[in-house]
C-alpha cells in the first residue's frame, strides 16, 4: 500500500540512510545535519503553546510514516488549475520525487531556471545556496527542522532580472496513499521579473492518508511581480505541517491566492514580509472544510519598510464537524511609517457542530499607519433563505447560492480565469445537500 519501498523511519538510522542515498554538495549536507541535530534536541510543541492550543497534535504519530527514499509508483493524473491553460513549464512531483519537468525553450533561453530543486542544488549551487532557507526559519519548530533535514524533490523557480514570463508555470504535487511529501518550493524573482505560478497538491484519492511536510519560500527583488496560486486538496486523512513565507522588496508586488480544501489536519504558518518601500501584497484565502477536517492558518503580514501595503482576506465555510482556526497578525516595525494594512477573516458556519476560531491581531510600533482588521462568523441567515425560497429557489438551491455568494468577494479579486474556474468547481463540489 505504501508506495515508498523503504522501511526507514525519521530517526538517526533513517537520516543516515537518507544522506547516504544522495549525491549533494557538502554545504547542503551540512545544513541537513545541523537541522537534524536540532530536530532531535527539540520537543514537539507544547499543547498549551499559543499556536497549538486550538490544534490538538495527539493524533499525529511521526512513527507511522517512512522516509520517501526512492521514486514511488503512485500513478499521476491531470491538474485542475492548469486546465485549458498554455503553460510556460511544468514540474510534476510524486511522493517527494520529481517525476517530470519541462520548460519552454524560449524561457530557458532567457535564463529562466525551472525544475527540481534537488537537481538544481547541485547544478546551480550558488543560486540555490543564496536563497534556500532565507525566508523560512528551519529552527522555527520541530516540523520546520524535520523538513530542513529531510526535504527532497522540490521545485526551484528562478526568473532573472527583467524577464517577464507570460505563461503560467505549473507545479503539481501528488501524494500516494500513506506517503510522505517533503517538497521544498523556492521561488526567486530578480529585479523587475514577472511570473505566475500555479501550485496544486493532491492525493490519489479523496480520503487518502499521508503526511505533507512542505515549505515554500518566495523571494522577490525590487519591482518584481508575482501571482502565486496554491490549491491544497490532499486527502482527508492527511496531515500537513507547512511554513510558507514571502519576502517582498521595494515596489514589488505579490498576489497570493490559496485554497485550503484538503487535509484532515493542517497547520500552516504563512507570512509576507514587506522589506522595501512601496511593496504590495494581496492574499486571498479560501477554506472550505467538511467531515472532521481541522485546518489552522497562522498568518503574518510583516511591515518592515515604510509605505507598504498589505491586504489579506480569508473566507472560510465550515460544515459537518469540521473546524478552522485562523490567527492573523499585522506586525508593523518602528521604521514602517505610512503602512497601509488590512486583514480580514469571514466565516460561514454551515452546521451546528462545525466551528471557526478567528483571532485577528495587530502589533504596531510605528505611529503613522493605517491598519484595519476584522473578523465575522455567521451562519446562513434563515431570512435570506426564505427570501430566495419566495422566488422559487428550493432550500438547497438557496443555501448553495448563499454559500457561493459568500466566496464571491474572493473571486472578484482573482485575476486568472482558470483559477476562478478551478476554485468555483472545488467549492461547488464541496457544497452538499441542505435539506
Amino acid at each position, binding site marked *: 500500500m505504501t508506495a515508498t519501498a523503504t522501511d526507514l523511519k525519521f530517526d538517526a538510522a533513517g537520516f543516515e540512510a537518507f544522506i547516504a542515498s544522495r549525491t549533494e554538495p557538502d554545504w547542503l549536507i551540512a545544513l541537513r545535519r545541523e537541522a537534524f541535530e536540532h530536530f532531535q534536541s527539540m520537543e514537539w510543541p507544547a499543547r498549551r503553546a499559543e499556536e497549538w492550543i486550538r490544534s490538538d497534535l495527539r493524533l499525529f504519530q511521526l512513527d507511522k510514516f517512512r522516509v520517501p527514499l526512492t521514486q514511488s509508483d503512485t500513478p499521476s493524473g491531470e491538474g485542475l488549475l492548469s486546465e485549458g491553460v498554455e503553460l510556460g513549464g511544468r514540474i510534476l512531483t510524486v511522493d517527494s520525487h520529481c517525476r517530470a519537468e519541462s520548460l519552454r525553450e524560449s524561457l530557458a533561453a532567457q535564463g529562466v531556471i525551472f525544475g527540481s530543486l534537488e537537481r538544481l542544488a547541485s547544478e546551480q549551487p550558488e543560486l540555490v545556496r543564496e536563497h534556500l532557507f532565507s525566508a523560512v526559519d528551519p529552527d522555527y519548530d520541530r516540523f520546520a527542522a524535520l523538513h530542513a533535514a529531510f526535504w527532497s524533490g522540490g521545485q526551484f523557480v528562478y526568473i532573472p532580472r527583467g524577464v517577464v514570463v507570460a505563461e503560467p508555470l505549473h507545479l503539481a504535487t501528488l501524494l500516494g496513499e500513506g506517503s510522505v511529501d517533503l517538497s521544498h518550493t523556492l521561488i526567486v524573482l530578480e529585479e523587475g521579473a514577472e511570473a505566475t505560478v500555479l501550485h496544486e497538491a493532491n492525493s490519489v484519492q479523496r480520503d487518502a492518508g499521508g503526511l505533507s511536510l512542505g515549505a515554500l519560500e518566495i523571494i522577490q527583488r525590487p519591482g518584481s511581480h508575482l501571482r502565486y496560486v496554491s490549491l491544497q486538496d490532499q486527502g482527508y486523512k492527511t496531515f500537513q505541517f507547512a511554513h510558507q513565507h514571502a519576502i517582498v522588496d521595494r515596489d514589488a508586488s505579490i498576489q497570493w491566492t490559496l485554497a485550503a480544501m484538503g487535509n484532515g489536519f493542517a497547520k500552516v504558518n504563512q507570512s509576507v514580509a514587506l522589506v522595501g518601500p512601496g511593496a504590495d501584497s494581496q492574499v486571498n484565502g479560501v477554506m472550505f472544510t467538511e467531515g472532521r477536517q481541522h485546518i489552522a492558518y497562522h498568518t503574518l503580514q510583516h511591515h518592515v519598510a515604510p509605505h507598504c501595503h498589505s491586504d489579506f482576506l480569508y473566507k472560510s465555510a465550515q460544515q459537518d464537524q469540521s473546524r478552522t482556526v485562523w490567527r492573523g497578525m499585522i506586525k508593523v516595525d518602528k521604521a514602517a511609517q505610512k503602512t497601509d494594512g488590512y486583514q480580514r477573516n469571514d466565516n460561514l458556519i454551515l452546521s451546528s457542530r462545525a466551528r471557526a476560531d478567528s483571532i485577528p491581531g495587530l502589533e504596531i510600533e510605528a505611529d503613522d499607519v493605517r491598519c484595519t482588521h476584522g473578523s465575522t462568523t455567521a451562519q446562513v441567515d434563515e431570512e435570506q433563505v426564505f*427570501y430566495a425560497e*419566495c422566488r*422559487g429557489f428550493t432550500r438547497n438551491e438557496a443555501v448553495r447560492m448563499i454559500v457561493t455568494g459568500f466566496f464571491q468577494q474572493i473571486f472578484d479579486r482573482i485575476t486568472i480565469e482558470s483559477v476562478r474556474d478551478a476554485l468555483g468547481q472545488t467549492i461547488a463540489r464541496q457544497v452538499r445537500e441542505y435539506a
Partner: protein
Amino acid sequence: MSHVLKIENLQVSVGDKPILRGVNLTMNHGETHALMGPNGSGKSTLGLAIMGHPGYTVTGGSILLDGEDVLEMAPNERARAGIFMAFQRPMAIPGVKMADFLRHATTNVRRPDRKEGEDLIPMREFRKELKEKMSHLRMDPEFARRYVNDGFSGGEMKRAEILQLAMLQPKFAILDETDSGLDADAVRLASESIADIGGREKMGLLIITHHDKLLEHNPPQYTHVMLGGRIVETGGKDLAEELHRSGYDRIRKAYPDAEAANQEMIAEEAAV
C-alpha cells in the same frame, strides 16, 4: 383565466403570541385589493404567512389557491404556483448578482417542475428579456450586475422588487409597502409600472400601503382595513380615500375589541 386565492379564518402566531385572529379574504385573478391598517395590525404577517415563512405558525384556518391547499406547500412551491410577495424589507444576498438570482428564479417559476441542476433559461434569451424589462422600468442596466439588495438604497430595493414582479409574472402578488422609501417621482413611476405589469386583469394584486399614490394608477375594487389581526371592514376605493384623509380614528372607535387586541400586540412588542 379565473384563479382564486381564498383565505378563510386564518390564525397565525409567532411563538405563542397570536397575531392574526381570523382573517377572511378572497381575491380573484384580475382584481386589485388595498390592504390598510395601522402599524402593527398584522398586514405583513398576513403576507408572510401566505408565502409560508417558517417563523409564522398557522394555528387555524386555510389558504387555498384554485382549491389547492397552499398551507401544504413549501415556500418555493407557493412561488412556483404563482404567488409572489414584494417584501417590505427585502433581504440582501451578498455576492449573488441580481441577474443570476433572477435567471434562476425566473426559470424555477416558469418551469415549476424543474429539478435542481436542470438547465436554466438560456443566458442570451434571459439577458434580452431582463434588459427590456429594466429599460421599461427605467432602471440602469448596471443594476443587473449588482449583488441582490446589497447596499441598495431603500428606493432601489423597492424598484428591484418591482423588477422581480415583472419577471416572475405571478397569478397573485402581495405588494408590502412597495411605495415606502421612494421619492415622489419614483412613487409615480412605481404606480405606473405596477399598473402596467399587474393591472388590466393580468394578476390579482393585494397592495399594502399607508399612502394613496400606488392606488392612483391601481384603483382598488376592494379596500380592507386590518386592526388587531383581523379585517374589520371592507369597502371600495372610497374607503381607502377616507382612511388616507382622516386616519383610523373612526375604525378604532367602531371596533373596540380589535383596537384592544392591536394595543395589546403593540404593548407586547414594546415589552420585548
